[in-house]
């Protein structure tokens, strides 16, 4: 517990400092409207993996190493700038059925009761992202989007994983459509050392348990040649679950490097 508090205080004090170094928006830019250079490949461990298909087109997946369990691909298209605002759109597909069937098991690791049959389900999401550089060392991004699901059958309403991270990402298969919106604010403090703050909101239709929020705050280290990035911080989650509104504080760690 103490370490979380120390980390939080550290992060907050850091965020209040003025940035002192230039910020690269070409690399490790998930969450912004920018895309990476053509053919650059960033492999993420506990982080997003991305590949630059073109200078203005980027393919990414949240967790490449478990992609066979959780196929989730996103295309980000950079559309250009207007009066200092940078525009992009994101389009993705997400197929969770393999993962859900894997964890619908007896014994340890059973996140879903094995009594449920998990149908084939595919979610399609679309987002618009707008980035703005309020000062030279920071990028502010706002986004909004919607998600809907295509299913071979409706999953049993009690086959949900009622735990943060999982629930909001799978809720669209139970109550759709989903609307989401949020912000990402990032900058540098000193050379190689930066901060990142984000808030993601999820709204779901046709249910009382319709709102979830995730807030991340982290310190980032990016290597001199922009080949590697480490993030450490916390994730604060809020959700309207069936047994009541719940808050969760979780550690946040990310590691990505250029291949």
């Amino acid at each position, binding site marked *: *517990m103490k370490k*979380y*508090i120390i980390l*939080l*205080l550290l992060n*907050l004090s850091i965020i*209040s400092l003025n940035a002192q170094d230039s910020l690269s928006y070409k690399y490790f830019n998930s969450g912004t409207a920018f895309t990476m250079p053509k053919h650059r490949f960033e492999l993420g461990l506990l982080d997003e993996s991305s590949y630059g298909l073109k200078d203005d087109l980027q393919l990414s997946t949240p967790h490449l190493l478990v992609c066979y369990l959780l196929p989730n691909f996103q295309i980000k298209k950079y559309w250009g700038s207007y009066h200092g605002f940078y525009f992009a759109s994101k389009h993705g597909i997400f197929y969770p059925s393999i993962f859900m069937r894997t964890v*619908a*098991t*007896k*014994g*340890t*690791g*059973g*996140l*879903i*009761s*094995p*009594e*449920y049959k998990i149908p084939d389900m595919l979610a399609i999401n679309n987002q618009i992202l707008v980035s703005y550089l309020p000062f030279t060392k920071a990028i502010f991004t706002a986004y909004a989007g919607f998600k809907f699901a295509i299913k071979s059958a409706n999953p049993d309403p*009690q*086959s949900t*994983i*009622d*735990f943060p991270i999982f629930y909001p990402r799978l809720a669209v298969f139970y109550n759709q459509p989903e609307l989401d919106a949020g912000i990402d604010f990032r900058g540098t403090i000193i050379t190689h050392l930066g901060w990142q703050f984000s808030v993601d909101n999820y709204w779901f239709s046709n249910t009382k348990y319709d709102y979830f929020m995730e807030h991340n705050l982290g310190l980032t280290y990016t290597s001199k040649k922009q080949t590697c990035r480490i993030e450490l911080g916390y994730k*604060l989650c809020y959700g309207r679950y*069936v*047994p*009541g509104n*719940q*808050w*969760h*504080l979780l550690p946040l760690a990310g590691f990505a490097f250029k291949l």
Partner: protein
Amino acid sequence: MTKTFTLFIMVLIGFIFYSCEPMATGFNDIEDAQYYSADIIKFVPDTFTSLKVMTWNIRFGAGRLPWFGDACGSRVVFTENEIYSNLTAIVNRINLLKPDILLLQEVDLNSKRSAYIDQVRWILNHTYFNYAVSAYQWKAQFIPSDGLGRLEETNMILSRWNLTDAHRIQLALRNDQDELTRYFYERCCMLNCKVNLPHNNNFYAVNIHTSAFATDDSKYKHIVSFEKELDRINNMGGIFVAGGDLNTLPPNTDTTDFCMQDRCPGESFHTSNSGPHKEGSNYAPEQNWLNSLYTKYKPAVTTNDYIMNQYKYFSHTDRPTHFWDRTLDYLFTNKSWISNSEVTHQEAFSESDHCPVSVSISLSK
């Protein structure tokens, strides 16, 4: 500016402390219990000469449905309709039998397996009871096994009269499990409270649910703790009604090994003289565990009565379609039960895998 920033930090820290619910909750040796009162307080007679006490393990409102944990079942999570239907049958039975003090075990609060229904409040508001206290037997935010998810199970005492001085007493944890399982597993407890009867300021109720599946000595420790608690009340001059699901057989029981009866398809037991035995089905080593309790205090069913007709007092079976085959539920007092008032309500077959046991205590001097 500095003040505002400090305030912001303090609020944020407070907020984070507030948010930090452990994955599975541990408990102190003794803690205050949770208190409840009915939405509408009903009239209670001021004068009476006896009280009817009942104990019932209600199996979290699952009735006789085939749960994976105790009935060779394949189900883990039950629907809202299933749970409400069983709860309705349970409160109908309670309202019919009309105990004045009710000891319930396995009452769920916010559990995925029972459709997140707050059974504590639901039972209180659908019976004639005015007050209740409860203590967690199991509290885990998320159990990553078998799809159990969130699990909050309590033991509960309900009464027409106000309940005070209620405490949750932690019982010994099982030592026959690995660390991970034990972290997420139930933490058996005892619940005691004072029942504020109109003309008796020294009346106590104690509810216990001992371990059902322990293969070490933890269940024995639970029974010893129970006896110590009754001794404590007795020594300070209090009158108690105490009981619950002791998960062991009465002294002098004929059949003490139910491994073969309880085995699920594919399971194999008694392949040699020494076993193996099914967890929670072999009571042979426990034959003397209740002797001291029976000697010191008055059981609702005396040993003589039990020996004469054991079948009449069977209160449990693991098999969903089978009739009661063993006695696990008890009531004790240090005063006097009214003769022949004890009833093992075997007709309540569909509401749970235990049937209610009731008896009346005389309050005349």
